[in-house]
């Protein structure tokens, strides 16, 4: 079976990464921003797996790291959602531009 070339995978992960970046900077809904962060993390996961698979097929570090990231991401999502819910209770909105009281 013909393997998908590494470059294609990297293009995919880069695309996902920048989609995430775009979402992170441009979206105003906090949940969307959170999803964008997930996208960024997942693009990193893809990178790890791809490099592991193509360059060092006999090692497992890449797999381990992506497992780490998934776990941490789960925790992070839990905390983030908690924050967002609290903010929602306080401001009645999940629009990030309306919750800008943490300043000077």
């Amino acid at each position, binding site marked *: 079976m013909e393997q998908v070339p590494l470059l294609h995978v990297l293009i995919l992960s880069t695309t996902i990464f920048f989609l995430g970046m775009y979402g992170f900077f441009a979206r105003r809904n906090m949940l969307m921003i959170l999803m964008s962060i997930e996208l960024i993390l997942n693009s990193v996961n893809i990178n790890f797996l791809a490099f592991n698979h193509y360059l060092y097929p006999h090692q497992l570090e890449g797999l381990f790291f992506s497992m780490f990231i998934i776990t941490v991401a789960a925790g992070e999502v839990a905390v983030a959602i908690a924050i967002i819910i609290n903010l929602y209770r306080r401001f009645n909105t999940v629009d990030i531009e309306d919750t800008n009281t943490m*300043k000077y």
Partner: protein
Amino acid sequence: MNVELSLLILLFLPLVSFLFLSLNGKRLSPALAGMIGIASLSVVTVLSLITAYGYFFEYGSVADVYQKLEPIKYEWLRFNENLSIDLGVLLDPISVVMLVVISFISTMVHIYSWNYMHGEERFQMYYAYLSLFTFSMLGLVVAVNMFQMYIFWELVGVSSFLLIGFYYTKQSAIAAAKKAFIVTRFADLGFLVGILLMSNGAQTLDFGVLIERLSVPSSPFTIAMSTGATFMGMSALAWGLILVFIGGAGKSAMFPLHIWLPDAMEGPTPVSALIHAATMVVAGVFLVARLFPIFAISAPDALEVVAYVGAFTALFAAVIATTQTDIKRVLAYSTISQIAYMMFSLGVAGWGEGHNEGYTASIFHLFTHAFFKALLFLGAGAVIHAVHSNEMADMGGLRKKLPITHYTFLIACLAIAGVPFFSGFYSKEAILSAAFHDNKLIYGVALFTSGLTAFYMFRLYFRIFWYKEAKADHGHGHDNHESHTWAMNIPLILLAIAAFGAGYIPFGHFVSADRSQVELPFHLELAIPPVAVGLIGILIAYMFFVKENVKALNVQQSFGAFYKWAYNKFYIDEIYLFVTKKVLFNLVGRPAAWFDRTIVNGMINGSASITAFSSESIKKIQSGNVQTYALYFLGGVLVVTSLLIYYFQ
């Protein structure tokens, strides 16, 4: 009793009495406080007479020259190897004469005040201040060291301040006290800088060493100070002496620093008699006399300044005295004029045989003047005590009501006018003959002034005791007899005796510039003009004021503007007020305060505002918008990354 011990008691008894009276204050009864003051001063007088007798007749002279003795001398504060303040007692003819004068007059005033100040609220403090003054004045005249003199100089200044301000609830008294202190303080600045200049030049503060080093023309100190840098054509030495003289001029109320003395009459009258007539105000004369060898030998140009300032002041003050209507002010201007006599008498004196007559004459006049001027003030005090007013308009015809005051006052007037056989005649004659030999211009001024003196003194006398009867409805209901008692009469009588007899002392035997014993020459031909002028003055006063008439008014009007000028003291006070209030306060003080609040403080506040402003402008970055932060973060990462790539490529 040995000399050191008696001198220590003499000096410290008044201090002890001051401390005792001021610390115990109201706990003492007034009578007890007065008694303590009088008793301690009587002891001081006896001791100073003993000292004078001992000095002049027993141990003072060696081969007919009086020695400078320093029986007591302690180092008090050492500045460096050469300069130190020593406290001690210097006995020489002038200091011994001053001891006698001060203690005697002070005792008289203490006794007199017993009655005069009776019933005053702060009677005890009054006696305490008098004791403080006496202590300071005694310390001043026996000073062994320039700084000792300066110390006591300031102390007499402050005692004078406290006594002028004795009625401290009265605004005019407060103003007068402040004025007296500040004007003399200003003059003392000159004294202080003079001390610095001279002590630096001679490398000593000790009077004995100083005079030794600076009065020998060949000594290295004299040469160093009189050559070298000059300022306005005068050497450092001359400037040093002139600065010291400015200090003396302030205390002795020489023109233009005389303005405080007439106002100082706000103090109780006995105080005026003691401080502002007989003792403190002659301190300037004493100071110049103390440094006389340096003046006469090393800096005759400085001595000339003394002579002209003195002569001008004598005339100037006499002119004002003729126009004043407050009797204490007349006496005050007369005091200024008489002290100026002493001053120019020193100024016209020189060094060496035949020239130093002026020195003896000056101290002689100081001596006689102390008695008759104190008597005049105490007499005026008795008059004021009786009529409760200082103004001539409230007086007249008092000779029957106050017989003792009348006769003693008359004796004093005769003495000050220079009528023969009274003390003032002898001393004034000596001064005039000294002036005649040295400087005809000053002689002329002095002669004219002595006529004026006779005129204004007898104007005062006739106006108080003759003229027309004053209206008795003065509100106080003063019963027409001498309300005062022995305590006021005894000093008057004793002083009258002294005012008459002091002239018969052969003064030249005791005091002369080189401390040898000389005969003060009496020049009959020179005695005639002043006596004649004096008699004319008295005659004019008699014509004008023995009865109520319009002659004086006519003359006054014929002088016109000049009279008005003199009456307003030539507007010197106004000039001072202008300079202090307008110039110093508004042009220096106010801008300084403004500068401080606005510029200096503004700079401090400004740096604070700049900090605040810049933080205000950058705080906008912290918008609270998380996405913006992330963008900055991204930008930062990009910049750092590109830099790293650029450098490590």
